[in-house]
């Protein structure tokens, strides 16, 4: 597996830190890990940290959009933070920032979400 998922629960917020490469091959593993954590835990909101993601393509966009739909259907919010320049470009191209805010780092994302709680 060339992609890694690190997760941390923080007061109803699931923080997901992705590293490595998120392509079609990795997408299935990442999707399963995230959905399991979202369905099993007391997760209201999701913070997706992309700081250590070295590569992403449109398969990664599909994974992010899919998790957005899941969280959104449960009445929660999903935000992304710390996107590297190439990942940010891809997210911009797909229009993702129209539905999901981008924060500079995890702590800003968390404090904004907790205000929104």
């Amino acid at each position: 597996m060339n992609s890694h998922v690190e997760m941390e629960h923080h007061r109803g917020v699931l923080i997901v830190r992705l590293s490595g490469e998120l392509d079609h091959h990795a997408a299935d593993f990442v999707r399963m890990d995230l959905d399991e954590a979202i369905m099993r835990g007391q997760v209201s909101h999701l913070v997706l940290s992309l700081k250590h993601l070295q590569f992403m393509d449109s398969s990664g966009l599909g994974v992010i959009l899919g998790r957005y739909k899941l969280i959104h259907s449960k009445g929660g919010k999903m935000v992304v933070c710390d996107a590297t320049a190439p990942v940010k470009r891809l997210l911009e191209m797909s229009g993702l920032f129209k539905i999901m805010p981008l924060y500079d780092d995890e702590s800003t994302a968390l404090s904004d979400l907790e205000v929104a709680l």
Partner: protein
Amino acid sequence: MTNSKAGNFMNVQFAARSENESFARVVVAAFVSRLDPTMDELNDLKTVVSEAVTNCIIHGYDSDPEGIVTISASLDNETVHLTIEDQGRGIEDLELAQQPLYTSKPELERSGMGFTIMENFMDEFEVTSEPGHGTSISMKKTIVSKKALYN
């Protein structure tokens, strides 16, 4: 064949398996590295290779690992020519397939951004497809060498 010209070229064929997607990206990146591309240019090339190869696997071959993906690349001065093709099912409606956000496989959580990304990241982009026989994507990108930027 595009390879008849005097420039450098390479061809690679591999099984249509998702674990070969990263291999495909690395092969093309290594081949192009002699042009001294910037990190952004290299990332653009890796992304389009990833999109095209993923399309071959998911759409061309319906995830059948028996399929074969072919990548041909050549260098013509500072320009990279890339052809990525499969002998799979082909695309019925090319215009529809190239619409941003359109996907024929929403059940697989595809974003429908593959063609849009390829068009945006490359200087030239052309798809040819014959239903039942396969799809071929030809692309060009001119590398503005890092050396040129520094001079």
